[in-house]
């Protein structure tokens, strides 16, 4: 039995079923991200854990205890919101102390704990500030301290970084991860930003239309997407249609070029179409097509994006993007030129959904 269990969770708003049979077991101390586009139900699941929404079906248990009959204020769950949600009429220390005061802790203990929390987020010096006197990043750190002060069983983070600037977003996500590991608190993090989820999580749940499409460690999700949706949503994988040439030898053709896959094709016959995924950073430009794991095509665009140069190549009807690290001496392939992209056979994944 895991620490936080979500079993067959369903949720409908009127005729719209937002969450469909969602299952997930989260271990104590684990950092799990729910990743998906807006409307995929990720926030709704989080809000059901917090008690703000009541599941239409299924059970939620924390530490072996069903949460069904507990109101939000009885669940001992810490929550951090996208909009910070600091109480505007209270200063930093009062905000952090709020949960402890409501719980009726003695004053000395509250003072001690507030101090400890402000130390954790390195804002000791701003204890007397009011929310409107602080930057977004600072406010969100206070919100984190406030959520953690009453020692909740579970910490829920609802897109906590979306309202912040790019640079602060990166530094605050690292800080959140550090604090989480330091306290060993079980954490659920909701985001639509794949880089955020990949960089911060122990495990990721990729959600699509109310269901979990794939659950796994970041590298697993990125390198071996289980479905077309995951492949499209996480990273910028190339999705290529290929024609099966010989199922026995794993031979397929892309455009009119033959490629032999490492992975068995499974239950297909010659002439069938299958989908392959190729990461844009997997290949490299070569002078000629030696061996089977190469594709030759016409370069249709080449974009300088800063640290990488993204080139697009037309192979048959497919358009394949590939990335090269920028370097001052590098001359990217020119538009209209013919180029050969080489990669290893394991880089071509079969997408089955």
């Amino acid at each position: 039995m895991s620490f936080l269990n979500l079993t067959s969770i369903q949720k409908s708003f009127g005729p719209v079923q937002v969450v469909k049979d969602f299952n997930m077991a989260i271990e104590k101390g684990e950092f799990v991200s729910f990743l998906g586009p807006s409307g995929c139900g990720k926030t709704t699941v989080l809000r059901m854990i917090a008690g703000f929404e009541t599941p239409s079906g299924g059970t939620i248990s924390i530490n072996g205890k069903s949460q069904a009959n507990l109101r939000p204020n009885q669940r001992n769950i810490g929550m951090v919101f996208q909009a910070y949600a600091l109480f505007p009429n209270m200063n930093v220390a009062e905000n952090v102390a709020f949960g402890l005061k409501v719980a009726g802790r003695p004053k000395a203990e509250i003072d001690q704990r507030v101090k400890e929390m402000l130390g954790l987020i390195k804002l000791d010096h701003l204890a007397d500030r009011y929310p409107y006197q602080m930057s977004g990043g600072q406010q969100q750190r206070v919100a984190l301290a406030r959520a953690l002060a009453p020692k909740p069983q579970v910490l829920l983070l609802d897109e906590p970084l979306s309202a912040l600037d790019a640079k602060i977003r990166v530094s605050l996500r690292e800080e959140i991860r550090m604090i989480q590991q330091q306290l060993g608190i079980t954490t659920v993090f909701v985001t639509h930003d794949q880089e955020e989820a990949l960089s911060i999580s122990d495990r990721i749940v990729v959600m699509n239309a109310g269901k979990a499409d794939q659950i796994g460690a970041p590298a697993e999700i990125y390198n071996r997407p289980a479905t077309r949706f995951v492949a499209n949503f996480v990273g910028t994988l190339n999705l290529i249609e290929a024609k099966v040439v010989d199922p026995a030898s794993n031979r397929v053709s892309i455009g009119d070029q033959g490629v032999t896959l490492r992975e068995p094709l499974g239950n297909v016959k010659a002439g069938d179409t299958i989908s392959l995924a190729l990461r844009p950073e997997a290949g490299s430009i070569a002078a000629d097509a030696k061996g089977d794991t190469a594709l030759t095509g016409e370069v249709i665009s080449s974009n300088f994006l800063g640290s990488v140069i993204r080139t697009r190549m037309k192979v048959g009807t497919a358009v394949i993007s590939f990335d090269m690290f920028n370097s001052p001496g590098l001359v990217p392939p020119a538009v209209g030129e013919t180029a050969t992209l080489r990669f290893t056979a394991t880089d071509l994944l079969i997408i089955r959904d």
Partner: protein
Amino acid sequence: MKKFWAWGALIFGLLYFILPLVGMTNFSLKMRRGVYSLDAYAVVLGDPRFQETFTYSILMALSTIVFGVLLVVPTAYWVRLKLPGLRPYIEFITLLPLVIPAIVIVFGYIRLYNTSSWLPLTGTTTGTNILLMFGYSTLALPYMYRSVDTGLRSIDIATLTEAAQSLGAGWTTILAKIILPNVLVAVLSGAFLTFAIVIGEFTMAALLNRPAFGPYMQLLGANRAYEPAALAVMSFALTWGCLGLIQLVSRFQKGAQSPA
């Protein structure tokens, strides 16, 4: 172009508000022939009926405010939080008193709560006072509701409520510690407007035959020359004072909440 509008606004303000006021103030100071004096004001302030009706209206205003706050704050909060679909309807209801003439409301009350009805409120002084307070509350409802609702709009009550809940707070704590402190300025502004309305109201008090300030002002207006002008000036100063207080308080609020 800018100048044109600035002048337009000035002329408009002059014709509409300032000149009439100046004229009236000037007139109210002319009771003693040939010199400016405060005689009219002295007469008014010394009139026992003035003292009686003014006190009565202030008491009525205060009870109307208390009743209005208790009614409006939790309602507006709850509607915004849980029944946002009802907001247009509630707003519609709170607008009704603006367009239903006070006469209609009072006629209705008198027919409904007269001495031979199931709830003979008009039979006793206290009953009539309560009825009048209800009437005043109706008149003040649009302003009180708008004011509180605008106050609630400026804070994210849904998220603040959830944040407080997740920290273990119940409804009473949320209303008392989170919501009320953050809309206090809006409540005060609604209260001042209510006060100004009740002090000046005539129709309802007259029809229910209560000794309020509005009918007294009307009575004086019909029978005297200088005193009503003095009264109008005083009444204007009072409402102006209320509005000034609203501005002051909301400026204070802005100072405390700005850099958005």
